[in-house]
């Protein structure tokens, strides 16, 4: 796997993502600086979590316009898979590669804890066997409140583009299990092509038993298996 992890000033999960990718593929990804204007040949691009550009203006807004993102958008349009985690999800919505926006949490609080999410569909990053299953993954964000207008939400539902929803440990999707006010408990979505995934929970922080869980590992294994 030739994976590239994009590093913005303020990214702080780039190395976690690299460790997870290396653990499943045996190969270290390239770390690509935001100011670079050339993207190495990649069969997977990861936009990591963190606080790119200090979250100035809106989370992900500045990163969406950084030089490397022109290359990432171009590669994504050609079908190179892109995974955006947390701040990476915010960047993907700001570029328009994914619909909607991530607003301030309804609680107004930075929330850092494990949550349960239900995998809603199979796909490049979401293995068949896990569909309908509940994963325990960490979240750590203040702007994870997924918003899209009703028409967009209907389209996401209709086209089966919702990848994960916040849920109870038993898989029930309830308001109480929604940590940030996201519409329809959305925790992650695919784009129409099924090759771009954005999610607020951190699979890379749950990819090794030492980290307290391995529920995030299947995502990386899945994309590796599907790319080969």
């Amino acid at each position, binding site marked *: 796997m030739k994976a590239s992890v994009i590093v913005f000033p303020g990214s702080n999960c780039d190395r976690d993502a690299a460790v997870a990718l290396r653990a499943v593929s045996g190969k270290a990804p390239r770390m690509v600086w935001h100011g670079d204007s050339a993207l190495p040949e990649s069969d997977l691009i990861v936009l990591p979590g963190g606080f790119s550009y200090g979250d100035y203006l809106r989370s992900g807004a500045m990163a969406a*316009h950084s030089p490397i993102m022109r290359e990432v958008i171009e590669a994504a349009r050609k079908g190179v898979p892109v995974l955006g985690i947390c701040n990476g999800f915010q960047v993907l919505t*700001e570029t328009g590669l994914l619909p909607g926006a991530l607003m301030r949490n309804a609680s107004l609080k930075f929330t850092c804890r494990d949550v349960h999410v239900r995998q809603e569909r199979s796909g490049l990053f979401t293995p068949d066997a896990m569909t309908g299953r509940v994963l325990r993954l960490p979240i750590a964000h203040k702007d994870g409140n997924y918003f899209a207008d009703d028409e967009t939400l209907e389209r996401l539902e209709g086209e089966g583009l919702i990848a994960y929803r916040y849920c109870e440990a038993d898989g029930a999707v309830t308001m109480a299990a929604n940590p940030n006010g996201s519409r329809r408990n959305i925790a992650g979505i695919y784009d129409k092509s099924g090759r771009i995934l954005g999610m607020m929970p951190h699979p890379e922080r749950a990819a090794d038993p030492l980290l307290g869980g391995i529920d995030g590992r299947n995502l990386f294994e899945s994309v590796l298996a599907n790319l080969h």
Partner: protein
Amino acid sequence: MKARITVTLKGGVLDPQGKAIANAVEALGISGVNDVRQGKFIEVSLAETDPARAREIVERMCRELLANPVMENYRYELEGG
């Protein structure tokens, strides 16, 4: 010229920060506040002196960066020359 740009949340988009401000206002003992919506104010100094061209520049920066059309509206005033 100067552009004074205001970015606001679209109607119908929940504004938890506005709500928190409304609660704090009430805690001050000020009553009669029905709703608070929080936005952003951005002041930009432009080298451009032609109002029509300045408008084009400001439109573009609002559309492509300063406001997120998914959830925000913008408006602006131009001043000086």
